[in-house]
């Protein structure tokens, strides 16, 4: 099947280095300490952060002088094409762990000892790139909750189909059997926190795809920064006096 036509357009009309449309908003769940909605094309994710709060299950606490970060990733029953999915399947557990470790690296946990930070992610619509959308949403929600972080953790995916590196794969492109590289970086520090790849790739191609994904991450970081600055301005107006 042809994923990139001879003119260089993909199935949804994007070019190889074009991301899907991003919609990001903070403060959507009033009950949460911090929350955000992040949409990449048709993939919609809500993140809610509760914390820092008292540790609820002392047996999970490993390091006394650091905050405990917990993460739960779950997909709504109607989020994908076919409904029948177990609520906590292996993929959800794996993603919960991956996202938790990514965010834990970026939160300054030593500043909040003896406390727990909960990050909950709910996927409302899945169209490829849910991992990345979740990390971006979690970053926004953590910032909205005022939790101190080293840097914004941003993530984007890229793949390689029809001999072309493609940025931000959707579900159809992802299930095409080519490779899928997900990269999570801390843009200001220019460090990679998450790197996952499946399927085979020659080394040079990998470097091209990785570079493309990193570029995508930097663009998302810009967007996230804008959203947060706009939010701060709104808070300032409302504070008035």
């Amino acid at each position, binding site marked *: 099947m042809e994923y990139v036509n001879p003119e260089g357009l993909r199935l949804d009309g994007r070019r190889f280095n074009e991301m899907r449309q991003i919609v990001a908003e903070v403060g959507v769940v*009033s009950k949460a300490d911090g929350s955000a909605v992040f949409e990449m094309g*048709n993939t919609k994710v809500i993140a809610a952060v509760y914390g820092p709060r008292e540790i609820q299950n002392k047996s999970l606490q490993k390091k006394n002088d650091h905050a405990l970060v917990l993460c739960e990733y779950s997909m709504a029953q109607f989020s994908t094409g076919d409904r029948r999915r177990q609520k906590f399947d292996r993929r959800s557990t794996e993603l919960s762990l991956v996202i938790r470790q990514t965010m834990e690296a970026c939160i300054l946990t030593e500043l909040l000892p003896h406390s727990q930070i909960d990050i909950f992610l709910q996927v409302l619509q899945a169209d490829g790139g849910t991992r990345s959308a979740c990390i971006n949403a979690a970053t926004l929600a953590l910032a909205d909750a005022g939790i101190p972080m080293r840097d914004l953790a941003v993530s984007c995916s890229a793949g390689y189909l029809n001999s072309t590196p493609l940025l931000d794969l959707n579900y159809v492109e992802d299930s095409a059997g080519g490779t899928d590289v997900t990269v999570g970086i801390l843009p200001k520090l220019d460090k990679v926190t998450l790197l996952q790849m499946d399927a085979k790739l020659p080394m040079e191609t990998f470097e091209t795809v990785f570079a493309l994904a990193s570029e995508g991450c930097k663009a998302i970081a810009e967007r996230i920064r804008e959203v947060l600055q706009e939010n701060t301005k709104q808070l300032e107006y409302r504070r008035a006096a």
Partner: protein
Amino acid sequence: MGLPDSSQDLSTEMEVDAFRRIFPLRFFERHLSESLRPDARPLGKARDTIVNPGLVSTADGSALAKIGSTTMLAAIRMEVMTPSTDSPDEGCIALEFHMPPICSPTVRPGRPADAAPVISKRLSDTILSSGMIDLKELCLVSGKAAWMGYLDIYCLNADGALFDAALLSAVAAFSNLEIPVVALNDNGRIVAISGGKDEDNASIIEKKAVNKEKRKLTLKNIPFSLTCILHKKYILADPTTEEESIMDTLVTVVLDSSDQMVSLYKSGGTVLAYSSAVKSCVELARKRAKELKQILGEMDID
């Protein structure tokens, strides 16, 4: 209540927020004596309600309902199944209500919220007993194929009156539902027609499509609900989480569009409801049903 009225001494010195946290009941009673609530609502008024249909593109019907901050997202997916032998002409609706941990600080991961299965069951009973959906409309081929509608309601923000918001989102999702077009293929099985390649499928659609015309369900007797809190002699409509946590007697009244009572629910609580209180709740529910009918009507026009 034999507690000393120590709050009187401190109330003048303390900040409002601290007083609200430490003496919540007295804080609310101060407001109730002026016939108001802390968010400036009169006692019988519900919060601003918004309904938005068709948000989830992967579902066959969906709606988002917001009452104040309480947000519910309902989505329906239709699948074909074999009907049971005692009702070969009827389809089926499976309803599930989820409270994911994002919605409230009290929901812990790995442990479902206490309220979730209760609301799930009540919603299921209310929708089926109201007669809103004629299950015979979900039949495709008598005895062989019928629709099973999976309705999933997710609470995205829990701020009181969860049952009301969930019912509203379910009703809106049903009215937004468009049943997918299917055809009977050569093996006698039902297949979905994606509607993509028109030249190939056009002939199939004309000849074999089993339900080309009937794509929307006719909803009669739509149920509308209102939850009220009874406290001493006051009746508060549409409580928030804060109010629900302080005052424990909740009464839910469900009326349908022809003003008939579908269900009444009062599960314990310190206040006993005399018939006059119940009548007032029903009156408030009647007014609310009119408001909700109008909101749903506006949604359909869009």
